[in-house]
């Protein structure tokens, strides 16, 4: 059972970067996630990355091998939703401290040098406060309204079911539409670029309209499901928010495995 008290590191968002960090330092890290889903920035956003990158760390290679064995990853293409059970299993087996369905309310400096942060959050147990020494915010939007917008693009993706024609578009078109193949021949992902302030109802209607007007090569497809997270593109950089508190959105990595490796490397190098 998860215990709550004082932690060396708090990771915000159950992203692949946070998972990498927690995998490398399971004793030290608590992860808070507002939704019920691991890898929201990839599996929840139906974002398959920019073309798979081979994993570089031993833990990343193990994950990559598992994804290949389960037919979730092949030839650089993902069946992205199936990351979810793999990651639940990983969290459970490794005994990682994750609190899903938990909202971060506020983060306040503890006062004094190196006194860390007091973080208030809310979940089914109610209002709780913990003390942490470092914070890695891996969320795409920045948790608790604390991080200013630095993303360069916002997109809503849908998973498509059905076979695309041979001349299906391979990359972004002028209309802000992007299309990416999935792991299986009847699986692909269809994304629409959105204005910064587009809300969920409008985004969904715009995506539906774009799909209705889809290129002829995608006519044989139907919408399998729409994403429950927007995908935000970020410049690939760590941004300090305050002392010992950085924002590194996991969605800034080109690929799920790269994001996972990024967390492990962070634990091994900068935050060793």
């Amino acid at each position, binding site marked *: 059972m998860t215990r*709550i008290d004082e932690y060396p590191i708090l990771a915000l968002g159950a992203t692949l970067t946070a998972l990498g960090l927690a995998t490398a330092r399971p004793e030290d890290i608590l992860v808070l996630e507002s*939704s019920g889903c691991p890898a929201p920035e990839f599996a929840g956003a139906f974002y398959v990355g920019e073309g798979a990158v081979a994993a570089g760390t031993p833990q990343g290679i193990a994950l990559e091998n598992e994804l290949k064995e389960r037919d979730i990853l092949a030839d650089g293409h993902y069946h992205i939703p199936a990351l*979810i059970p*793999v990651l639940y299993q990983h969290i459970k087996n490794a005994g990682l401290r994750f609190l899903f369905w938990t909202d971060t309310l506020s983060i306040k400096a503890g006062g004094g040098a190196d006194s860390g942060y007091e973080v208030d959050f809310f*979940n*089914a147990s109610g209002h709780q406060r913990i003390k942490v020494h470092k914070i890695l915010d891996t969320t795409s939007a920045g948790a608790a309204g604390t991080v200013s917008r630095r993303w360069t693009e916002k997109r809503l993706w849908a998973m498509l079911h059905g076979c695309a024609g041979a001349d299906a578009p391979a990359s972004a078109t002028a209309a802000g539409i992007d299309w990416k193949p999935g792991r299986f021949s009847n699986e692909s992902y269809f994304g629409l670029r959105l204005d910064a302030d587009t809300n969920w109802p409008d985004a969904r209607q715009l995506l539906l309209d774009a799909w209705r007007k889809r290129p002829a090569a995608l006519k044989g497809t139907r*919408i399998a499901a729409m994403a429950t997270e927007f995908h935000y593109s970020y410049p690939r950089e760590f941004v300090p928010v305050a002392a010992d508190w950085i924002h590194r959105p996991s969605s800034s990595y080109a690929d799920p495995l790269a994001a996972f490796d990024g967390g492990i490397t962070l634990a091994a190098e900068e935050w060793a």
Partner: protein
Amino acid sequence: MKLSTWIAERGVVTEPVEPQFDTTYDLIVAGLGSAGAIALITGAQRGLTTLGIDKLCMMGGSGTAGGIASYYWGVGGGVYEAIDTRAEAIAEECFPPGGKFHPEARHLALEEAAVGAGAELAYTSRIVGVFMEGTRVRGIRWISPAGIRDTACRMLVDATGDGEVCGITGCAFIHGREFDGIPQPYSHVPCWIKDGRHTSQNFDAASTVCAIDGAQYSDGIVHGGTYHLRDKYSETEKLLYAGRLPGLREGRLITGDTTLRLRDYLAGEMTDRPVFYEYANLDTHTQDWAFESDTVQEWLTVASFWGLNFSVPVPLGAMIPKGFEGIMTAGRCLAVDHDLSQAVRMQRAMQQCGEAVATAAAMALQKNIPVRELSYEELAAELRRTRCLPESVPPTVEEQLPADVDAIRAGLESDNPGTAIWAARQQGDTIRRHLHAWLESPDTAPARNAALALGLLNDPEALPVLRRIIRQRDPYIPESGRKLNARRLCAALYLAGRMSDSAVVDDAATLMSDPESELDIFSYAFSALLRIGGNQPETRTAIANSLRTILEAPDFQRSLSKHRSRFNEPSEAYFRIAAARELDRWNIPHALMDRVDPAKLTMREAGLYRHIKQ
């Protein structure tokens, strides 16, 4: 004014405040699931200024994000039907076929209706505090992607399913069943495309999760999510999503102006002022019926009535938290007891619940009167107009029972004896002498079923036949229920235990120690022994010795096998903890807890453990 919040380990805490509200709405609905979505749309359509808040980024709750893409019984009628029609059209155009309704199409249709009616939507948001003046709710503190906000309202509706907002407000509630504090099991439902069709998988059931324990809630999500792991995924079996909602069937159940209880309902106590009806069976997904209440065991075990549908009229008072104003509930956290909550929770009824609540709220706000003072006749007339309140209703239990002695006798002879057993229970003294007479040939079906009926009347004349059923390990399973029928042996164990019959102690202990006894038989024998020992002090030493021999054995093994699933859950600690509690009450020393590692409990075992510690 004061701000009420829910603080871990302390419960409800209030502090005086002077809030600066950013806006005022007539109606704020927290949770936009089956009930909340329809409440929001109804409120907006009736001209209220409305704000809908949900943790997710979509409407529809269990029926959309939760992947529950079908209606289970219920009575048709209400504003949701037009939305379903629209969802069908969207599904037809855009989504793969499959299911009764398409979850994605449905949430699009709900959203279209809400936005069209002028409702404001606040997704990925959650209420964390409630502003009150005395016992009247005035507004909410909530967390949105933009940060914390304070917003005023004239009526707040808690439609979070788990009753989280009522919890924050300080409304009274119950959680779980009396024996162990455990609610119904949850199922973390995934959605797939299988062979080209959209499908969800209600794999029944992961375990039990306490809706007021954030760590267990989270562990439950993780545990349930592992069930969707496959050796290989394929073109013909593609996962779409999992874990958008945790899949809890039961959380807080509030105490209302009127709280509906199964035992009252079965005694014929029903409102004549319904605002909607449920029509379903006692659809429990609990696998250990031996630890349910007497009423549930009478119904499920003795009458074997899993699957007998009945209609339940629900009054407005079941959605008004007792002692509070300016707040109502809609959805499965309404005021029912744990027993009845297993029936009164299905999607059609929950949607109608949302409609009834918002209609009442709108009428009361428009008249500027408390919702409690609303004329029932006026409200009912409005609800009849949309058919939320139907003209004709499927039968109650009473209406399905045989009335005369010959019909009851014929029923007791049949493979479907449930209605006859229940009718005899209801008739009591009127039929008792016939039941006594039918006991004469104890190895015949009518005698055995008559003994069950007499057992329900606590009539000691049933005992010789009940003992015989137990001694002979009667293998009979009736066909009274739709799917899950209870063994006559379990019914006899339950009744003998309830009547504290010390003559069955040896047989019950033998059943427990027999490795061939399946878990239901083991559990009923265990439960009978606890009850007999509880009421007959002279039996305690013998019972405690048996329990200790069986449960303290290092190789003792019992797992909870799921009715319709491929999974087993260890249960050894559950029995050890439950037995330890009883032996402690009897002041009999034991070493049962030496074999329990609190760090290695299943979620169900942890629930019992926590219940006992409290």
